[in-house]
């Protein structure tokens, strides 16, 4: 059903813009695509108004390639750089009020479940560190405590990029930014720990310089959110403007930051492991055969 709206109405093919025809003929809708195939199909997000060298844009592109059902996915965001790119994708995007993305996603995902039952309609929140950890903090945490079934992705550039480089809760201690003229006076907020405490079924950190890993965590997070509960991905997506990272050094910076404070971590609840193994054939989460467990005695 949902695929119908990305198809041509009879007789209109030749009048449609090339971009649209490419999306219908070579887009990812209704197919299985992976990041290793990028370049061989029309991505849902290609053109965007982001700065040259923006790591966040790369991450958003990869994430959208990784969505398991892009034709049945709705993204929700808030003010920040990210939405400038997210809103350009061929996926419905909700741009509500400031910091209200997890509240909107709560109502949206419940409403879609009422209308479509078990048919997957994936709701994915993508918001910045300010939107998630500062202004939207209360709604983010409460949506997790309520075990709302959607994915929250933090695009963490450790700064308010869109408003011109102010300190956020996710900024590292000591960083000198606007509104932190003497350096930030407290630590980077530990949202990962809070996600676990609040009961998220899946929590992962990721940097964009490993596309296969981005794909892997996004797929798992979206699938788990369909039935098990809230999932959270925290992605380091540097701001090369505010942190003055030369354009050609953005990936190098990501590597450095990955080694410093963004090592890959992944938490999967037992229920989520079982769900992924049984429903989607994730072999790594299958229970180990009894004989393979070494005898403790």
């Amino acid at each position, binding site marked *: 059903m949902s695929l119908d709206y990305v198809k041509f109405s009879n007789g209109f093919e030749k009048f449609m813009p090339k971009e649209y025809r490419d999306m219908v003929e070579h887009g990812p809708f209704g197919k299985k695509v992976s990041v290793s195939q990028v370049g061989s199909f029309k991505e849902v997000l290609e053109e965007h108004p982001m700065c040259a060298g923006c790591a966040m844009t790369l991450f958003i592109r990869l994430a959208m390639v990784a969505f398991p059902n892009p034709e049945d996915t709705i993204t929700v965001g808030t003010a920040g750089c990210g939405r400038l790119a997210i*809103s350009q994708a061929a996926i419905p995007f909700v741009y*509500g009020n400031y910091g209200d993305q997890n509240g909107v996603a709560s109502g949206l995902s419940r409403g879609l479940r009422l209308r479509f039952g078990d048919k997957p309609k994936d709701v994915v929140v993508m918001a910045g560190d300010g939107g998630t950890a500062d202004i939207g903090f209360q709604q983010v945490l409460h949506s997790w405590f309520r075990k709302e079934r959607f994915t929250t992705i933090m695009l963490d550039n450790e700064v308010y990029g869109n408003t011109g480089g102010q300190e956020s809760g996710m900024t590292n201690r000591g960083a000198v930014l606007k509104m932190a003229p003497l350096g930030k006076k407290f630590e980077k907020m530990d949202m990962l720990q809070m996600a676990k405490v609040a009961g998220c079924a899946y929590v992962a950190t990721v940097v964009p310089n490993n596309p296969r890993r981005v794909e892997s965590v996004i797929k798992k997070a979206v699938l788990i959110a369909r039935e098990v509960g809230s999932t959270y991905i925290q992605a380091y997506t540097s701001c090369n403007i505010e942190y003055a990272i030369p354009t050609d050094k953005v990936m190098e910076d990501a590597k450095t930051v990955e080694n410093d404070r963004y090592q890959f971590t992944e938490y999967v609840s037992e229920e989520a492991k079982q769900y992924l193994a049984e429903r989607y054939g994730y072999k790594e989460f299958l229970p180990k055969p009894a004989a393979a467990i070494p005898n403790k005695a």
Partner: protein
Amino acid sequence: MSETEVKTNPQGDPVTSVAVPKADRKSDPHGEAKRQRVVTPEYMFHEAPRTKEFITGSEAAKEAIRRSNVDLAIAYPITPQSETMQLVGVLYGEGYVKEYYRGEEEVGVMAAIAGGSRAGVRCYTATAGPGTLRGLEGIASWPGHRLPVVAMFTCRVVNAPLAIQPDNIEVSYLLNCGMIVFHAENQQDMFDFTMAGFTISEKNDVTLPVGVCCDGFFVTHARGYVRMQDRGIKLPPREAWRGAVPVLDAENPPARLSRDAPVQKSNFMAYNIHAVWQQEVWAAVERSRKYIDRYMGGLLTAENVDDAEVIIIASGSAAAQSREAVRLCKEKGMKVGLIKVRSLRPFPTKELRQLCGKAKLIVIPEFNYVGWLAKEVATAIYGFSNAKIIGGPRVYGGQSMPVELIVDEVESGVSGKKSTNVAMSQIMGGVVNADEVAHFMRSI
């Protein structure tokens, strides 16, 4: 239309219980809800037989929701609204409301209501006073996002120091959001306006949120007779697929508003888009008039207004007090008419111009300090009536309004005696006394 009265015991009424009634194992707890039959709005509002019950405003709202086929209700406790939303929770337990939860606070609740409406389901919430203002960023964005929703505002004080007393000043904030705003006088209005609200809000040429306001406590906690249709019937469901504005369900191409980054930018296209958008929202408010006439019987009601030289104009609880004032005036031999404004947005401008043409005195009692209704009325009838307008009496901060206050204003307005309760600055029009104005100007 047949009408029978059901005797209820005000003290022991079981409907105030917030626990879902225990069902025995054999019967389906949602059985009664499942057996509800869908009827057309026309049958529901105009033809269905009604039975009279003596219930509170919160219970009236609950009974309206029971018959409104609501999908998603989100609750957050605030006095005096709490009772309403917890009673809606009982409906969830009984299966009349399909999804329900207690939200984190009003910003989160209004956001989630927006999400639910975008998903294409029928949504309901309620709040009051400080909760209204806390949620106002979200509420004020609903009309622009073209989200059909019904929200109830059980008005109370918003000023510091904190208080929980009745005061309807929050209505003045809601009037400028672009939403449709009704003001209920009593329990019956709460019931009727809420149900009509869902129908009007989802009309394709409207597609706007509806706010149903009432004066907290006076309506929510007090009992009144409410004539209600059988609980076995309900309104048709929201049909999102036929809505004028595509919902965000990945079944329709999304509404452009969600997509266009240029809408955010500073260029002539952005200004134009925003200007046109606001015009369209307010045009939709205008287009709701015909539905308010059809389903609610008009934007106002007029009682004894024909050739009355004195008219009291009021909304909400002030209308009830005014009706009693009209009776007292009649005993004193004064012929006074009453206009009760039911819809504040759209505002009954045309109707007031017509009704107030011959009036010599208009008295506008209100339950707030700022006198938002007096300003609305004066703006509407300027140039169409030569009446002197007394913007008062006003009570606020939890005060009740003795009807004698209103009678005093009628008497002093007619006799030309200076009012003891209403400031000179709130008296508009009529014959201007230069000495009084000079005295006023010297004393400020």
